[in-house]
């Protein structure tokens, strides 16, 4: 008998938590992007696990689309980081405070 789906679901939940903690605490925009990738991967793992458990290919199709959106998101996000770095010479999100107040 194979490993139960619950183990993979718990692993995905813990991975999501690590990614969320990183987004909340790290200052560098690049590291925050990587942590968002961690959270997306945790969701993908959950999708695949439920796809196996429920014998439904829709979960894997969803992972396919999540990957496409993640690729687009990283492309645009890193473009924004490069544009901000040209102007500010820093990728720290703490220094982007023009809209304060």
């Amino acid at each position: 008998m194979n490993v139960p789906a619950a183990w993979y679901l718990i692993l995905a939940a813990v991975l999501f938590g690590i990614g969320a903690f990183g987004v909340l605490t790290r200052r560098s925009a690049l590291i925050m992007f990587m942590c968002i990738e961690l959270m997306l991967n945790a969701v993908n793992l959950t999708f695949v696990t439920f796809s196996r458990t429920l014998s439904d290919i829709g979960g894997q199709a969803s992972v396919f689309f999540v990957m496409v959106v993640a690729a687009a998101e990283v492309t645009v996000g890193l473009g924004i980081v490069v544009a901000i770095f040209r102007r500010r010479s820093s990728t720290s999100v703490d220094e982007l405070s023009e809209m304060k107040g």
Partner: protein
Amino acid sequence: MIAATYALPSVLIFVTTAIMVLVGATGVLALKNPVHSTISLIMTLFGVAIAFVAQSADFLAAVQIIVYAGAIVVLFLFVIMFLGVDRPDATRVEPLVGQRPFAAAGVLVTVAGIIALMARSHWVTGAMSVSSNGTPLASSAGNVKELGTAVFTTYLFAFEATSALLIIAVVGAIVLSRRERTADLEEDA
């Protein structure tokens, strides 16, 4: 005891996957150098790919390696080297007082809530085989064929929309990251 209950190979694969994923994810957070964080991210992505293979999602595992480890991580590394931000991040500074404890508490509550919810629903939600008319997925040989059929029939409109999304993202990235040189060009001409 666990190995007696479940097949030993699947337990070994799961333990390997879990170690790779958790060590890699912790490394992304803990390492000071952004390049090291990116390398650590690769380990997590490979761990998730192994988990995909173990759950008979072969095509997604290949895409995970090619797109994530091959393209996205290289893009990260390229931007890090391009900007020259591979010096250590000032993580010791904590501008917001108590941000980390609050973040840790919030994350712990969220993860515990997710696990409790899944445990209450006996780890499976909904009925079996909602969309596949009761035919189970091929469990041993992978299910590339089923995935291809689903993507090109049921999810065809979403698939076409992703192509438009990718084009828009590429154009947007070029517009965002190019330098403004139109004024200089006009002066030269």
